[in-house]
C-alpha cells in the first residue's frame, strides 16, 4: 500500500474504536446500486523504480532539439539555486497561507514578489499570481470592464498582433459575460498596431485598449501614443508585456502621460522552464485606484500583537471564499510555487542581470536574423524595432521547411501561416541568451540545406518524415 502507513494492527484497533467490522462498512451510506467495482482498466501500481524507468524513457523520447521557438515561452537561463530552493518541502508542500502565523515564509516571499513585480512594471500594486499570461489578460479585461467608471460599454479593443492564443483565451473566458472584443489590425510595413484603423474608433465607448509590448511579432509598439490615445478616449490602457522586456523597456507604469492602468502578462521568463507550457504564472499589476477590482490573492504587510512586522492575505473581501458570487474572480488555487521560483530568480538576477539577459537575447536574435537573411530568399517581414523575436519570410513552404528542420533536430520557429496567412511563408524566430553563435550557425547551415533541397525538388517528391 504505497503511502499508507497503516499496519494490520492499526486497522484493527481503529475499526474497533469506530465500531465497525471492516473498512467497507464505512461506505454504507453510499447507495449500493451506485457502488463501482474494481477499476480493472487502470494498470496495477508500479514501484518507483519502474515508474522511474518509464519516465526516463519518455523524457528521452522527446529528444532535446535545438529550439528557436519563442511565441510566448522563452528558454532562459535559470540559476541552479532557484529550483533547489523552490522545491524545498516547506515551500513545495505548504497550502495557501490561510494560517498566517504558520506561513510567514510564503507570505513574506509573496510580498517580496509583489514588490519586485511593481519594480519591474512600474505599477503601484501586484497580485500574487493568476494561472498564466493568457488567462491573466482575460482577468485584466474583466477588471477593466468593472473598473472603468467612465465607460458604460463592455467593449474592448484587442489588436490582431497580440498572441493569437491569448485572443482565443480571452474570448473563451469573457464571452459569457457579454463582453465584446473588437480587433484592430496591424500595419503591414512596421508590424505594429495600425494607428489609422485605431483612429476610426476615436470617440466610441470602449472599456479598454489592450497594448502588447512587444507584440506577437516581437515588434515594439509606440506605447506612449497608444496609452494617451486610450486615456483621451475614456478607455483604460491594459499593457500585456513580457516581463523580461520590462527590464530594459520603459515600464508600463510610465507609458504616456499617466501610465498604463493595468499591466499583465506571462511570468514564465522569470525562472520557469519552458516545460511543455506549464506550470507558468500570470502576473497582474495595476494602479492603486483599481486595487479593489483586482482578482486573486494579495498580501499585505502589517504588525502582530507585539508590533512586530508580519505579512497576511489582505483585501480578501474581493475573493470568492468571502464574497462568493460577487467576487472579482473565481480564482482560488493560483500558481504560488512558480511565483516562489520567480521571486528567487529575480533576486538572483537583480536589475542588472535581467537587463543583461534581455540585451543578450535582443542581440542574439539580431545575429540570428542576420545569419538567416544572408540566405537567398530569406527576409525580414517587418521594419519595426524588435525585442527578441523576428518574423522572417522563407523562399519555400514554411510548414515543410520547419518539418525538415525538425527532422534535423532544429526547431526553427513558430509557423505563422495558419494565424496570419496574409504574411505568406512567415516564421517567428527567437534566440534567447542561451542560443550562442554555434547554435545560430547550426540553424543557418541546416536551413540552407533545406532550402536547397526543396528548391531542387519542388514539391513533386513528398519527403518521408
Amino acid at each position, binding site marked *: 500500500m504505497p*503511502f499508507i*502507513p497503516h499496519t494490520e494492527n492499526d486497522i484493527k484497533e481503529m475499526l474497533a474504536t*469506530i*465500531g465497525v467490522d471492516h473498512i467497507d462498512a*464505512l*461506505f454504507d451510506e*453510499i*447507495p449500493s*446500486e*451506485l457502488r*463501482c467495482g474494481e477499476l480493472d*482498466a*487502470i494498470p496495477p501500481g508500479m514501484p518507483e523504480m519502474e515508474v522511474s524507468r*518509464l519516465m526516463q524513457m*519518455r523524457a528521452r523520447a*522527446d*529528444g532535446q532539439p535545438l*529550439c528557436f521557438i519563442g511565441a510566448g*515561452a522563452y528558454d532562459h537561463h535559470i540559476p541552479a539555486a532557484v529550483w533547489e530552493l523552490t522545491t*524545498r*518541502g516547506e515551500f*513545495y*508542500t*505548504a*497550502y495557501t497561507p490561510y*494560517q498566517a502565523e*504558520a506561513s510567514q515564509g510564503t507570505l513574506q516571499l509573496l510580498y517580496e514578489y509583489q514588490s519586485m513585480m511593481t*519594480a519591474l512594471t512600474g505599477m503601484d500594486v501586484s497580485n500574487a499570481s493568476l*494561472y*498564466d*499570461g493568457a*488567462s491573466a489578460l482575460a482577468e485584466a479585461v474583466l477588471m477593466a470592464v468593472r473598473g472603468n467608471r467612465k465607460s458604460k460599454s463592455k467593449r474592448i479593443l484587442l489588436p490582431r498582433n497580440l498572441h493569437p492564443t491569448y485572443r482565443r*483565451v480571452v474570448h*473563451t473566458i469573457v464571452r*459569457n*459575460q457579454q463582453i465584446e472584443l473588437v480587433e484592430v489590425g496591424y500595419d503591414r510595413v512596421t508590424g505594429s498596431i495600425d494607428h489609422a484603423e485605431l483612429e476610426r474608433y476615436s470617440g466610441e465607448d470602449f472599456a479598454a485598449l489592450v497594448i502588447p509590448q512587444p507584440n506577437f511579432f516581437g515588434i*515594439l509598439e509606440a506605447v506612449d501614443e497608444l496609452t494617451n490615445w486610450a486615456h483621451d478616449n475614456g478607455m483604460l490602457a491594459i499593457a500585456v508585456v513580457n516581463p523580461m522586456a520590462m527590464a530594459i523597456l*520603459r*515600464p508600463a507604469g510610465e507609458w504616456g502621460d499617466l501610465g498604463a492602468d493595468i499591466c499583465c502578462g506571462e511570468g514564465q521568463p522569470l525562472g520557469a522552464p519552458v516545460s511543455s*507550457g*506549464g506550470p507558468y504564472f500570470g502576473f497582474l499589476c495595476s494602479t492603486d485606484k483599481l*486595487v479593489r477590482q483586482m482578482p486573486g490573492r494579495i498580501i*499585505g*504587510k*502589517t*504588525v*502582530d*500583537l507585539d508590533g512586530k512586522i508580519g*505579512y497576511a492575505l*489582505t483585501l480578501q473581501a474581493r475573493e470568492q471564499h*468571502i464574497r462568493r458570487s460577487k467576487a472579482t474572480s*473565481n480564482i482560488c*488555487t493560483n*500558481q504560488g510555487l512558480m511565483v516562489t521560483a520567480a521571486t528567487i530568480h*529575480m533576486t*538572483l538576477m*537583480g*536589475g542588472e*542581470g*535581467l537587463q543583461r539577459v534581455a540585451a543578450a537575447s535582443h542581440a542574439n536574435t539580431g545575429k540570428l536574423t542576420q545569419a538567416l537573411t544572408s540566405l537567398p530568399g530569406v527576409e525580414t517581414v517587418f521594419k519595426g524595432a524588435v525585442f527578441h523575436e523576428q518574423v522572417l519570410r522563407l523562399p519555400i513552404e514554411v510548414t515543410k521547411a520547419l518539418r525538415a528542420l525538425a527532422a534535423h533536430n532544429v526547431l526553427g520557429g513558430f509557423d505563422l501561416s495558419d494565424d496570419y496567412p496574409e504574411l505568406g511563408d512567415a516564421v517567428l524566430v527567437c534566440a534567447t541568451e542561451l542560443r550562442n553563435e554555434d547554435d545560430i550557425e547550426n540553424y543557418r547551415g541546416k536551413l540552407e540545406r533545406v532550402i536547397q533541397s526543396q528548391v531542387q525538388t519542388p514539391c513533386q517528391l513528398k519527403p518521408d518524415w
Partner: protein
Amino acid sequence: MIYEHSRVGRRAMAQAPSEKVEMAGIPDAMLRASQPPLPEVSEMQAVRHFTRLSQKNFSIDTQFYPLGSCTMKYNPRACNTLASLPGMLSRHPLAPDTHSQGFMACLYELQDILKIVTGMHAVSLTPAAGAQGEFAGVAMIRAYHDARGDKERSEILVPDAAHGTNPASAVMCGYKAREIPTGSDGDIDIEALKSALGPQTAGIMLTNPSTVGVFERRIKEIAELVHAAGGLLYYDGANLNAILGKVRPGDMGFDVIHMNLHKTFSTPHGGGGPGAGPVGVSKRLEPYLPIPMVDFDGNDYRWLTEQDRPDSIGRLSAFAGNAGVLIRAYIYARLLGREGMHRVSEYSTLNANYLLKRLMEAGFDAAYPERRASHEFILTLKKQAKELGVNTMDFAKRLLDYGVHAPTTYFPLLVPECLLVEPTETEAKEDLDRFVEIMQTIKQEAESQPEMVKQAPHTMPVRRLDDVRAARELDLAWKPGA
C-alpha cells in the same frame, strides 16, 4: 525583507551574461531610464534568505496538516524528481508532435485513467485549477443549452455549503447563482431544491461527499429531479479523495465534473498552487470540452485543436495548462495503480471516522453526529465558544503552538464555530492519536487559562496579526526609498 540585504552594485555575478547591456536598434525613448529596482544581493545572501524564509512555513513535509477540503496528503518526491528530468523541462510547448510523443503519451494515459476512475465519457486536462475546471464545466453546460436553442436558462443552483468558487464560477459564465439550503442531516433540502428548479435552471453544482463531510444519499433522486427540469449536474471534484474506486460521479448521474489533481492526485500545493483541474463529461457534453486534448491513433499521439473540435468552448490558457502538474499526477497514478486508488478512499475514510470518533469521545461535538464521516468531518465548537469564550479561531491558533496545522475554520459557513478536519490517508494512527491529545489539552487550557489560548499562537515567528490594519493601511509592496 530581501531588500534589506540590497546594496547598490552588489550582484550575483555568476548568473548573468558577461557582456554589458547594449540595445542596438531600439530607440532610446523606448528604453527605461534606470535599472528596475530589484534587490541587489549576492548569491549566498539570496540562498540564505530564502532557505530561512522557508523554515518559517508549516508544510506537509514538516507537520500534520488536517486542512479540510484541501486534501493535504503526502506528495511523493518521485513525482517532482521525475517530472524534472531534463527532457521534461526542456520541451517547448510548441515543439512538433515528432518531438512530443513521450510527453503526449503521459497525457493521453492520464486522460484515460481519469475517465475510468470518474466514470465519465471523455476528459480534457487543460484547466489550470479547480476553479478553472468549474468555469469550463459551467461554460460547457451553457454551450449545451445554447446548442439546443434552449436560451432562457439563467440560473445555476448551488448548496449553501458550497465552496465559494462554485457561485463565483457560475457568475463568470454569466449565470445567476441561487443557493439551496442544507438540511439538518447534512443532505440537501430536497423540498427547497424542488421549488427552486424550473425552466430557468441551467444546472446544479454539487460535491459528493459534500463540504459538510457526508455523502449525499439521495443523489440519484436529485439527479432525476434536475434532469427532469432540463438542467445538468456539475460535480465539484474537490472531495474525490473520499470515493476513489468506491462510487463514480458518472454513475451518480453527473454530466460534468472537475477534479483537483492537487488534492486527490497529490500534486503539491506549493504554498498556493499550481494545481490542475481536468474536466470530465458525459457523452452529450463531449463536443464542448476545452482544448487542447491528446488523441492517439494506435501509432502516434497528436493534439486535438480548434480544427478537430469546432464546438469546443475553446482554450483556457496559452498552451496546454499546467503540464508539469499533470505529469506529476500521472506519475502518482502509475505509482498507485488501481489497487492504490481504492486504498486512498478506504484509508482516508478510515482515518476520518476514527479521528471523529475519538474526538467525540473526548467531548467534542460533531456537526452531524448521526452520519458517517467521509474523508473529512465537521466539529462545531459552539459549546466551547459560549461557555469558555474560546472560539474556533483560538483553538486553531493554539494548535499551531503544538506543531499541528489548523483544520479549515469557519467553512462551510452554515455550521457555527466549525472546524473542517481532513486527516487524509497518509497519516498514521499515532499522529491522529496525538491530535486528539492536543485537542484535549487545548480544551483544558481553554478552561483553566482562556486568555492564554485567546492570545495564541505563542511560538510562531509572529503572534496574531492585525488584519484590519493590513486592509486599511494598505502596504502591498516595498518601494525604493521606503
